[in-house]
């Protein structure tokens, strides 16, 4: 722990061989759960995340129902075996905060007003966590929502930009997140050209911040393509069946 690790080598490559603006390999599977109304599974680096969507269904308990829109319920949860040290199954403060920001990242893309007094449930289970699990979870959640047939303004896609060894880099892995100097996840809704999640910790100068914003947007657009493709494959496959 005490040795200072070099996160960028002499060739400008990162610990896992990536370039600074290169995202990790992504694998997506849609509709893999039988019970859920919609579901999606994502692997991004070593992240393995599964998302189920239930709904729209009647708000339960009733008092959470809203008269003018669907209530979105969102739970980001990590399996006890998803981390290096076993995690207690009880929700941590971190999981509670992330559940909230993910919900608020997804809500602007959902036509919630179509379903007053209903609720839409988004259940995220992190089976294995690497850095950037909240972003991968958002990317998968919007696919699960689409798979459930929930009307969306567009998919939501998310990616972080961070700072490692003083340089900006996209889609930080676990070790980069821990040893790096800053991390800024954003969620983007391409059709609306809007950012629905932005968080940051670490240190950014103004200049770095502007650059990071653009890098994040570009990375999001790459992932957006992969999302769209996965959705297309799923529909083609469904039609064949």
């Amino acid at each position, binding site marked *: 722990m005490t040795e200072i690790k070099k996160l960028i080598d002499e060739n400008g490559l990162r610990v896992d061989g990536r370039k600074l603006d290169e995202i990790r390999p992504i694998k997506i599977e849609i509709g893999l*759960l*039988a*019970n*859920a109304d919609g*579901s999606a599974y994502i692997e991004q680096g*070593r992240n*393995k995340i*599964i*998302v*189920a969507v*239930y709904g729209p*269904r009647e708000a339960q308990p009733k008092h959470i129902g809203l008269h003018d829109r669907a209530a979105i319920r969102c*739970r980001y*949860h990590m*399996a*006890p*075996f*998803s*981390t*290096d*040290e*076993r995690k207690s*199954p*009880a*929700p941590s403060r971190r999981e509670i905060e992330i559940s909230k920001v993910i919900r608020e990242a997804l809500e602007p893309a959902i036509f919630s007003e179509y379903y007053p007094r209903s609720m839409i*449930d988004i*259940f*995220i*289970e992190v*089976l*294995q*966590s690497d850095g950037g699990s909240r972003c991968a979870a958002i990317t998968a959640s919007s696919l699960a929502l689409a798979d459930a047939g929930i009307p969306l303004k567009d998919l939501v896609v998310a990616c972080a930009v961070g700072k490692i060894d003083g340089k900006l880099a996209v889609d930080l892995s676990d070790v980069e997140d821990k040893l790096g100097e800053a991390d800024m996840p954003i969620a983007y809704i391409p059709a609306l050209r809007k950012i629905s999640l932005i968080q940051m910790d670490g240190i950014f100068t103004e200049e770095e911040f502007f650059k990071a914003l653009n890098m994040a947007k570009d990375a999001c657009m790459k992932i957006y393509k992969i999302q769209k493709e996965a959705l297309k494959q799923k529909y083609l496959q469904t039609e064949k069946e």
Partner: protein
Amino acid sequence: MSVTSQVEPLTKIKSKRMMKLLASGKRLDGRGLLDYREIKIENGVVEKAEGSALVSMGNTKVLVGVKIETGQPYPDLPNQGALTVNAEFVPLAYKYFEPGPPDENSIELARLVDRGIRESKTIDMEKLVIIPGKEVYVVFVDVYILDHDGNLVDAAGLAAVSAILNAKLPVYRVKENGEVIKMDEYVPLPVQNCPIPVTMVKIDDKILVDPTLDEENMASAKLTITLTKNGEICAMQKSGLGAFTLDEIVEAQKIARKKSSEIREKFFREWC
């Protein structure tokens, strides 16, 4: 407090069809009464866990992760490692699962899987001691339900045993001054048995193995019998609002014996 739970009723058409088929020894999905759905076991799916396995049994999907840490032994068992089995019925898996602390169903499942492992001496707990009375291995077996279409116990039991079988035990060295150091080396867990649970339900006086969720909802009672590699019974549990005759239990035991050896032969190595 345990409360009689709501059961989601099947549609009339579906339940009539089920009963009609059962009368002629068939099931909704075409199986015979004593047939399992297709079982798939995928090992090592979670690399960060010391062991893991994903079992699917038809539409039922259960993931088990094994984490191994070190800690103090139980005061009354100073020369044994510790084992903890926990089950999460996460809301992702079924529309009626709610988030929150484990309820009676997940506790019952975890304790039943635990009994199978513990009583069959699946793991040689005496080999999990680092410093007797002071520091031992603690094995966490976490059962994660991903998709619930009935027979969670058998899927969980198989996934637990599979994850234990593929788990790697980090090696620790005890220095002369008593300091314990984690080496960059792994060995397999000392496994010596594989308990196989077989779950049956009773519908209209018929015994069925590997019930789907629809079948569980129609059943009057459920019985799990877990067998060791030597054909001994090491755990049993009846649940549900109904009851069994003595003869039915005797019959169920024969069925469980047969099905558990079929599963054992198909999925597990000879010695366990």
